């Protein structure tokens, strides 16, 4: 059961990240949640958003929805996509390789998996929706 919800639509450019940072703080203030949550929420939203901007085949704004229920924050990103682009299906990265053999690719989705207790994707009628749930103390 999720209660209060806020939505922000932003263009598919990296300049949108600053708008989303402000949006997270507005949400935390409105929900009287700790600003301590901002870092992890920023990280999850940035990784999902930049993944869409860089790799998904679609156009138009990306809609970010934030919802709060007791003990949980749910983040959803909705984007028009010509075909399904499921970040939750991305292969897991190997973080135990020597540094010289490491690549940065895939780390963002790895962070999302580290920080979220639920992570799933659905595609319907040309719109992809990525949903993550983070546990919070509220």
């Amino acid at each position: 059961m999720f209660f209060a919800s806020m939505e922000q639509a932003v263009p598919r450019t990296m300049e949108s990240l600053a708008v989303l940072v402000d949006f997270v703080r507005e949400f935390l203030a409105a929900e009287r949640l700790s600003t301590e949550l901002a870092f992890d929420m920023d990280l999850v939203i940035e990784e999902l958003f930049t993944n869409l901007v860089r790799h998904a085949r679609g156009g138009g704004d990306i809609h970010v929805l934030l919802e709060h229920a007791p003990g949980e924050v749910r983040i959803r990103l909705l984007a028009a996509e010509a075909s399904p682009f499921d970040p939750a299906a991305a292969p897991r990265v190997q973080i135990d390789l020597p540094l010289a053999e490491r690549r940065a690719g895939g780390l963002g989705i790895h962070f999302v998996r580290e920080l979220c207790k639920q992570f799933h994707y659905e595609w319907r009628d040309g719109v992809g929706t990525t949903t993550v749930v983070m546990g919070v103390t509220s």
Partner: protein
Amino acid sequence: MLELRVEPAGVVIVKGRLDAAESDRALAALAALPGPLTLDCSQMEYISSAGISVIMQTWKRLAAQGSSLKLVGLIPRVRSVFAYAGLDRVLDIQ
């Protein structure tokens, strides 16, 4: 916003947010500097995978030149991102 300030003795003060909006500019700025480098991260408020990529690429460039990269002063939240990436054990972080 991100600010990089080059100090004497290869010290670079990193201030602000090292995110995907700033990573290209940060990588280009660091690529212009010879090693060894010490990044003073005490005023770095945030880092994402794009910022981690900047650090990894800079480390690889300097290592290929026989030089080194050191990170100092990380706040706990920033350090935790390096830990998620498994880099806290392999990078020189103090």
